[in-house]
């Protein structure tokens, strides 16, 4: 729609990108040695939310599909993990199940929205409505008759007491706070690198091509609907991973995972960071989460007022997000220096 805002078809990463990734990995491994538990807990949840932001940012920035409902797969992932982990006691199984259920649902939902050739705004609103219906349905399950296996869905109270993730074969010994920090950080880094590399494959290039000009890609012989469904499912899987980790991190899932505020936060993370890169959504998540926590401590009243204002201002003034805007400014300054010489 606005080619100048959109992400460039990904070139192979340069050497400094690999250096940066390696540096991040080293920093991640070293962090627990010089930080306290509170920092590790706070940062773990940012990693988890960054995955959710990545799922939406990838889908929007590269495939041109604006889904407001990545929280559907986030919530489904969390709930599936919770139910399977409590029911079977085997958290590795629950981890896999927590990914499979939402992925299956994303194929079904994706079939309707992609193969129905629903235009872009319709798709955004439909995914938003689906996540709201999920929230409402789960909220209404507070009665004792709503059980899956032996697990009560608990309505708006959610499901407490979910077992933490443990390594395969070591059931009953859940990961420590440090372990969860490592896991969440590693998953985020892996998904980031993975998505970046997927964009280099034929699949990645085709979805970017479809975003640029769907008709042209179809005339070139690509079935755009198949590729879009693939992108939708891939993003669903990333959101599901985020949901599973969320359940394992807090030992708790609640219908709020599906609600409008959660969905809005994902949008704000991506908009603030910028959708034309993959690092933008991660950066945006960290920034907005720290800002929200800080606003909560200084007691300025409703955090949603500030978040709403941020969303309006970014759409009106910085529609590309912070990172691309900063990058452009830097390039501008750099170029003017070069031309002065």
């Amino acid at each position, binding site marked *: 729609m606005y080619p100048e805002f959109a992400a460039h078809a990904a070139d192979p990463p340069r050497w400094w990108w690999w250096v940066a990734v390696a540096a991040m990995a080293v920093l991640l491994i070293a962090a627990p040695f010089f930080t306290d538990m509170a920092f590790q807990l706070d940062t773990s949840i940012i990693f988890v939310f960054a995955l959710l932001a990545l799922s939406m940012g990838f889908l929007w920035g590269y495939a041109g599909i604006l889904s407001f409902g990545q929280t559907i797969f986030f919530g489904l992932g969390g709930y599936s993990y919770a139910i399977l982990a409590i029911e079977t006691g085997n958290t590795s199984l629950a981890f896999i199940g927590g990914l499979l259920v939402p992925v299956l649902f994303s194929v079904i939902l994706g079939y309707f929205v992609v193969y129905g050739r629903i235009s872009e705004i319709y798709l955004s609103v439909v995914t938003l409505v689906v996540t709201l219906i999920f929230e409402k349905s789960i909220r209404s399950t507070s009665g004792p008759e709503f059980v899956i296996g032996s697990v009560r869905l608990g309505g708006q109270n959610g499901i407490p007491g979910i077992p933490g993730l443990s390594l395969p074969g070591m059931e009953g010994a859940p990961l420590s706070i440090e372990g969860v920090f490592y896991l969440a950080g590693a998953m985020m880094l892996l998904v980031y690198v993975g998505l970046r590399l997927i964009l280099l494959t034929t699949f990645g290039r085709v979805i970017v091509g479809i975003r640029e000009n769907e008709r042209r890609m179809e005339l070139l012989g690509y079935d755009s609907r198949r590729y879009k469904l693939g992108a939708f499912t891939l993003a669903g899987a990333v959101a599901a991973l985020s949901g599973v980790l969320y359940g394992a991190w807090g030992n708790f899932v609640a219908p709020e995972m599906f609600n409008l505020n959660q969905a809005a936060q994902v949008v704000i993370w991506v908009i603030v960071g910028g959708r034309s890169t993959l690092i933008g959504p991660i950066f945006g998540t960290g920034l907005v989460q720290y800002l929200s926590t800080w606003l909560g401590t200084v007691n300025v009243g409703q955090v949603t007022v500030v978040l709403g204002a941020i969303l309006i201002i970014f*759409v009106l003034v910085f529609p590309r997000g912070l990172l691309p805007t900063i990058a452009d400014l830097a390039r501008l300054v750099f170029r003017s220096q070069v031309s002065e010489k």
Partner: protein
Amino acid sequence: MVVTTIYLIVYAIALLVIISLGLAIIFGMMRVINLAHGEFIMLGAYACVFATGAGSPLWLAFIVAAVAVGLFGIVVERVMVRFLYGRIIDTLLATWGLSLFLVGIVTTIIGPRGRSVQTSFGSVDIAGTNISSYSFVLIGMAFLMIAITWSLVRFTRYGLIVRGTMQNAEIASALGVNRGATYMVTFGFGAALAGLAGAVLAPITGASPTMGLFFVAKAFINVIIGGHLPITGTLAAAGIFGSIDGVVSFLWSSVVGEVSVLIVALVLLRLLPMGITGRMRGGL
């Protein structure tokens, strides 16, 4: 039994018409989806609460709510929406920001607790079914809102300009129509309908900062399935979904009703991606 079912269906259809007409007008005429629609309804409900609290009769409170939210809509259009015409996604995002902002501001200023409207409506017995008499007001208001909108667009000079702009905005402005002013008035009119909707609902639901949430999902489904013709689309979609919702809610529960509406909506979208009125050319 039969009376209860018919009543539930008519009531569900009327409710859908009331909550989605304002959204449908703004979407149909301007291709803008206003995600703050639920919050416009919420503001209308508060206007009704305060007006009746100050001693105004209910009918006057309806008018106050419509006028107040309509004016607020015009301000929103001037300050925010008008910079984003032609950028559909950005209007969606900006109005979402507005929605969060309004919920937060109202919670801060008025407080999170709900307020209610005191009315003196009783209930009547029809063939063994106990029906609250306010339901008839609600059903009557649905008819009135459709009638007002239809006659405004059909018979007035403003309506002629709006229909022209809707069919072809380029040609309309080439003929000297001030497109900005038309959009401003249309957005204000849609907001006024949302405010009226909130006021009509206030005696049933009361007013609370997050009440918009209860209506947005239904209203969006209705407008999207209805398609771009605001009146025909709203009536057709409300007819379908109201019937399903009424029958299923009667047989099971209101949540099952909403879920079944969503499933029918997804199947309908697969068959008619542009909505029921997507292929109709002229009309309202």
